[in-house]
């Protein structure tokens, strides 16, 4: 049965919605990876349990893509270990691949082939027994409501449908672990909602763990558990609401002609330390509304605009790293996808 490893990573703060004895599907321990002159991963340890969607949230360059490549058997780390159930991801890639589904960010479907042809080829690559093949093809296409569209060429499908077909292809061989690289990048909001609907539907009917990488906070917010990565390290790990609670009660965001003077003034008079990021002064506070009115009265000239909101995963990232999530390494703000 489940073997508890002595060097197991620290346990997640809470396992939500899952029964206490839910099996762990993926165990990763102390992964490191480097390019010449640059450490990409600095000791990553994590676990993913059956039935859960684990989001790895981080900016570009945080190392999440490299982590995904290692987990999908395409790259080897310098040190550390990774196990999918009882299979060693690093030492036994062949066996691991039989139990692993991967949906890459760039489309893996052949656009000149129909949906069915793509899936049929996949079934044969995974050497599904002939008897099982047609059943699995039908099941996978049905989970994603693609059965009626199966004879259409991939190039003629909308982005949302292509994404669903990618997923159907990824789960055809009933993997224990499904890896998704930036799954809803490039999808419009409606298609994104639909994608999540189908992902949840899939998890209800199968016994697998889903690990996805994303730089979108709303995608992480929909997941069961979030690991925030920055500069090759795990910054924090918990359910979206747990993480947001670590920030505090509410966030007040202030705009001002002189942010620095406002920041010093607030610290002196109200004893609240704020952070300046992207032209805003952000304050974490418990009694938001009360403090907001005090502020506006105390600094009538310095405050141009004030917003009060609940903390988001963006705020969690800011608090843990001192930087905004959507500012990439060159400091250029990224357009919200």
């Amino acid at each position, binding site marked *: 049965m489940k073997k508890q490893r002595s060097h197991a990573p620290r346990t997640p703060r809470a396992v939500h919605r899952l029964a206490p004895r839910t099996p762990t599907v993926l165990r990763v321990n102390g992964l490191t*990876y*480097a*390019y010449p002159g640059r450490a*990409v991963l600095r000791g990553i340890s994590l676990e993913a349990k059956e039935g859960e969607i684990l989001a790895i949230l981080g900016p*570009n*360059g945080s190392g999440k*893509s*490299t982590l995904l*490549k290692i987990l*999908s*058997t*395409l*790259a*080897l780390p310098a040190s550390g270990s990774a196990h999918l159930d009882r299979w060693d991801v690093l030492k036994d890639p*062949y*066996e691991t*691949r*039989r139990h*692993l589904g*991967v949906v*890459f*960010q*760039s*489309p*893996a*479907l*052949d656009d*000149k*082939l129909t949906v069915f*042809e793509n899936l049929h*080829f*996949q079934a*044969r*690559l*995974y*050497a599904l027994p002939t008897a099982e093949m047609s059943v699995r093809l039908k099941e996978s296409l049905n989970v994603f409501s693609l059965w009626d569209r199966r004879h259409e*060429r991939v190039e003629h499908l909308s982005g949302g449908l292509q994404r669903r077909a990618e997923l159907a*292809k990824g789960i055809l061989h009933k993997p224990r672990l499904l890896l998704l*690289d930036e799954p809803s990048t490039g999808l419009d909001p409606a298609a994104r909602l639909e994608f999540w609907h189908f992902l949840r539907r899939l998890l209800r009917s199968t016994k697998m763990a889903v690990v996805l990488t994303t730089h979108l906070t709303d995608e992480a917010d929909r997941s069961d558990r979030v690991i925030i990565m920055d500069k090759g390290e795990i910054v924090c790990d918990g359910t979206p609401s747990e993480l947001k609670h670590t920030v505090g009660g509410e966030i007040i965001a202030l705009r001002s002609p002189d942010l620095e003077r406002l920041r010093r003034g607030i610290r002196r008079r109200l004893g609240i330390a704020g952070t300046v990021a992207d032209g805003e002064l952000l304050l974490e506070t418990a009694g938001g509304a009360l403090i907001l009115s005090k502020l506006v009265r105390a600094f009538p000239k310095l405050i141009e605009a004030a917003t009060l909101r609940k903390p988001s995963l963006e705020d969690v990232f800011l608090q843990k790293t001192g930087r905004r999530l959507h500012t990439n390494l060159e400091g250029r703000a990224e357009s919200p996808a």
Partner: protein
Amino acid sequence: MTAVTVLVQRELIRFVRQRSRMLAVIVSPVLFWVVIGSGLNRSFQYPGGPQSMTYLEYFYPGTLVLVVLFASIFSSISLIEDRRDGFLQSVLVAPINRSSIVLGKVAGITILAALQGVVFLAAAPAVIQTSSIGSIVLTLFVLVLVATGLSSLGFLIAWSMDSTQGFHAIMNLLLVPMWLLSGALFPITGSASWVAEIMRWNPLMYGVAATRKALYGLAPGAGQELPGFGVSLLILIGFTVVTVLVAAIRVQKRLASKPLEESR
């Protein structure tokens, strides 16, 4: 083995659904043949060959090889596209032997290249008076061998390329000169000694030589200055086996140890 058939089938379906590809591959060599062949038709003399041979006839086997060369090389570019899209990645994470990727791709491209060669081979009876069923079947066999060698060479080059631009550069610097110096355009007997020396080391020279001999049904008079048919076949087969093996090794090796770059 299933993996190989899957990859071959995919290659064939893709080709059928992009028929314009075939035009590009056949039309330009045929234009070459008609224009250069007719232009030089009367001014050509084949040292050591039959005096009556026109340049159109001399140039025909070389053009046949050029069709196969273009077809295999252009199809190899699709490997770079497969990598740029996620298709290759999804094959790499499938539980298959990596060598199947080489075999599947090379076999698929070979079939396509040989088929395109056949289209042009249909002109053989009009160009070569002594053509027979036997000589055409023999030529087809040689073309398949040439196609296999060129496809595996194309695979090997494309595997280490990140962009199609890089592939075009290699094509102009290596593959086109290989063809120019293969005896396709001019016979080895009339060329400067240094050119002849390079030609002797060019594997494609043996491909053109074997094609030429096969087209004349191995008649004793045709291309007597060229290496023997059997020797040419052996060299072709040797070249193909070595390229496929190197490709199979590289496919295993590079992906195991390469520090893969961030995708974004």
